[in-house]
């Protein structure tokens, strides 16, 4: 298949072929599914473009699960190694994001279980309750995702991040979490209820949309 990258190379006569190909592969018109198919075909430029485009989203997912930056680095690396090992399990035509998120989720669950074994449970609970008990002005000003999501359960946090931060559809989230669309909707609904309750209790100001009504 002839991709835009080759035309760009001719038009602009960029001396470094890899550079031109990489740039064109980062173009939003080149879908993640197309890149994944080329990655499966052994195209390194496509693999690099995928890494550049998907890693920030996965990194946010890990950081939003109350893990340290160092842990997030490890988890991202581990996820890509796992993705590389099982890249043949992606089937062309299927949405690629749920496939990545399902593997990232698996890596995170492994990490979480390991952390539970090594860290005392009391300490973790203390940390979580500290976050949950943060003052409203701290949340409002710092816009800290950890603090915002702290009152939620692990699964609610995960679903909300995929849906609202990564911008995935309900169907994609259901695929990534091996659940049904109905179950995802229910989790999101409960998460919003809990967040609204927490924020109202903390006395956060109403948004402009509500002020108007």
């Amino acid at each position, binding site marked *: 298949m002839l991709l835009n990258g080759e035309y760009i190379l001719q038009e602009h006569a960029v001396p470094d072929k890899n550079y031109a190909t990489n740039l064109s592969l980062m173009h939003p018109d080149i879908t993640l599914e197309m890149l994944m198919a080329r990655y499966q075909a052994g195209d390194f430029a496509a*693999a690099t473009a995928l890494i550049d485009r998907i890693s920030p989203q996965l990194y946010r997912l890990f950081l939003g699960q109350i893990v340290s930056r160092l842990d997030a680095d490890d988890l*991202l690396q581990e996820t890509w*190694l796992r993705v*590389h090992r099982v890249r043949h399990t992606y089937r*062309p035509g299927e949405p690629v994001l749920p496939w990545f998120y399902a593997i990232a989720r*698996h890596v995170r669950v*492994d990490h979480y279980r390991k952390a539970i074994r090594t860290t005392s449970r009391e300490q973790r609970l203390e940390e979580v309750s500290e976050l949950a008990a943060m003052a409203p002005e701290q949340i409002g000003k710092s816009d800290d995702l950890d603090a915002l999501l702290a009152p939620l359960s692990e699964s609610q946090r995960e679903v909300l991040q995929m849906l609202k*931060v990564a911008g995935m559809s309900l*169907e994609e989230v259901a695929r990534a979490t*091996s659940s049904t669309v109905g179950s995802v909707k229910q989790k999101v609904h409960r998460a919003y209820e809990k967040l609204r309750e927490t924020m109202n209790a903390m006395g956060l100001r109403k948004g402009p949309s509500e002020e108007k009504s």
Partner: protein
Amino acid sequence: MRDGDIDELLKNAADQLPQVKPALLKSVADAIQPSLRPVRPLPPTWVLTGGVFLIYATVALAGAARAGFNGFAKMDLLERALIFSTLSILAWLAGTEFVHEMIPGSRGRISAEGMLALGSVALLAVFAALFHDYHTEHFVSAGLICLAVGVVHAIPAALLSWWILRRGFAVNPQSAGLVAGTIGGLAGVALLELHCPNFQAMHILIWHIAVLLVSAALGALIGRAQRRHIKALRHLA
């Protein structure tokens, strides 16, 4: 506070998260480059499900061919049609679910536990509707033999199903094991229906369905153990 306000807060908070370091991305790319070669994607779901279904049918028929089709010969047409069509539909559904368990991010219609519950309830309903002889004779001794024969045939069916999907990747090995065990269990039940001439309702309702439950439980346990085994190997490496 409205949903839109919460969305905005979430988006703002996510935007303020630290960015991934370019050096990390480069190290990831460098790590995968040496082993980057073309790979063949897995075949479509129906092909894999077909393979699993073929294993289910082959194990059941091969076992019955060896032990005898005594049960099948004793059944009337309605019993044959209802029992084997139910078993086939359940085996196909379980096969689809197994494929879903072995491919990350694929669309699943029912959970592993749901599949087992559906299989058990459907078989209970069919057996209860067809067999009404509630007289029991050699209940435990005959039952244990059927259970053993069923599970002995369920194991190769589950292992062969796993072999068909060996290139897959189970994000939840316990669930995948549970479904593989369910497929094996269905093969075991199918074999018993073909072979076992004991039509006492309690015998079929309890011991034949126990094959499905025991196989699924074994599958889940093996899946769970496999996860730990893989972790231990990684730790050693």
